[in-house]
């Protein structure tokens, strides 16, 4: 566990005890000793080596670090790792199964919805939250649901198409 602090170059201070947290990440319990100030995004990336969750702006604007926390989308750079103790987290790594891509990932491929790819994990997790509530969204509803996620390549058009593509596929799979 000390390796976490070697990487982020901020050894825990002696007068503030580290806390052991166990987080269910993509269905698997993961444990780490963390300092209270460690952010959830950094816990995922540095302690659990799940680097699919990106940190972009670090100021709660860009949404690249979006994950699902107990099923709802949150910006993981804006939650403390200690707050996730005992909770369920889903990251982009949990989307695909061993044999096939998630319809959202397939949709992003089909509709050329990524350019540099930096915003993609956050876009997908925000879209997943939308589709879990509404499998038949309008284009407008997709745009609103993704309005907390920024794409600096400005590839929004195809991202919206990809989400609509995935929704259609997921509806077809239900029937």
């Amino acid at each position, binding site marked *: 566990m000390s390796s976490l602090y070697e990487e*982020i170059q*901020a050894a825990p*201070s002696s007068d*503030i005890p580290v*806390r052991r947290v166990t987080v269910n990440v993509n269905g698997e319990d993961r444990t780490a000793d963390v*300092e*209270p*100030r*460690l*952010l959830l995004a950094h816990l995922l990336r540095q302690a659990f080596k799940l680097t699919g969750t990106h940190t972009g702006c*670090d*100021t*709660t*604007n860009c*949404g690249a670090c*979006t994950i699902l926390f107990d099923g*709802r*989308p*949150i*910006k993981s*750079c*804006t*939650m*403390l790792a*200690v*707050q996730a103790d005992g909770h369920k987290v889903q990251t982009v790594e949990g989307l695909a199964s061993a044999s096939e891509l998630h319809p959202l990932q397939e949709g992003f491929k089909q509709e050329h919805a990524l350019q540099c790819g930096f915003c993609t994990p956050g876009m997908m997790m*925000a879209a997943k939250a939308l589709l879990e509530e509404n499998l038949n969204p309008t284009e407008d509803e997709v745009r*609103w*649901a993704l*309005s*907390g*996620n920024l794409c600096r390549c400005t590839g929004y058009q195809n991202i919206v198409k990809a989400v609509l593509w995935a929704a259609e596929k997921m509806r077809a799979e239900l029937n």
Partner: protein
Amino acid sequence: MYPSRFKYESPKTLEEAIKLLDAGKGEAKVLAGGQSLVPMLKLRFAFPDQIVDINNIPGLDYIRFDADGSLHIGALVRHEHLEKSVEISKRQPTIAAAAPLVADPIVRTRGTFVGSVCHADPQGDWAATMIALNGHLVVQGPKGKRNIAMKDFVLGPYATTLNYNEIAIEAVIPAPKGVARGGYLKLERRVGDFATASVAVALDMNGDTVLGAGFALAGVGGKTIDANDAASALVGQKLTEATIAKAAALVAAKAEPRTDHRGSAEYKRHIVETFVKRILTANSTQKVA
């Protein structure tokens, strides 16, 4: 970016949380939704010794209309709970209109109504709705509970009359005498940006007649602007082109906009006047039950 070091506790009761705040002597901070506090910690605008996370205290996430018609919002009600509440959409149109305009959809899953009011950002949407609706906060400290009227709550940017050892546990919106009407409009360059101008309007109607009206502005001054005086143009009257224009002019006169990259002061004042007119006009044409 890493926050500076702090101790963290996640008490299970309000009493424990208040004890921790009291012991912190002003260097302890409440963490609810964290959507303003955590960014401020990272930017090191805030560097408390102690964080008191209230998310594990049960029973604070209620939206409740009492039998007398007053609305009670617990400290852990997230923005999205208000956005999705059927009761709110039926009975409290000012809050229903503001909820989908707060920050962005992802921030709304975590951020809380009461936390946003306590953060006292001059741009804050909820502080403006609370002033227009003549709301108050119920706060609890070592000596028990007290009420703070919203008009006495905000001192300036990020400064309130909440004591360091108190927690705001509930926001209360008084019952209308007639039917609650109103709305909220915000101009922003993109979702999540600070508002160019925001207008909250609360109406208390008996048929076509205005029994009471409240107005507040965000984004056009150093703090949330109370423009409730403009009610004088409407109370006891109907919403006509003339009374609407008079009220809108009175509200716009209260704005204290500054010219910046979001627009000139003159433009922002014009937006305020236009928004007041739009909200009032929309309510004047509604069929009142």
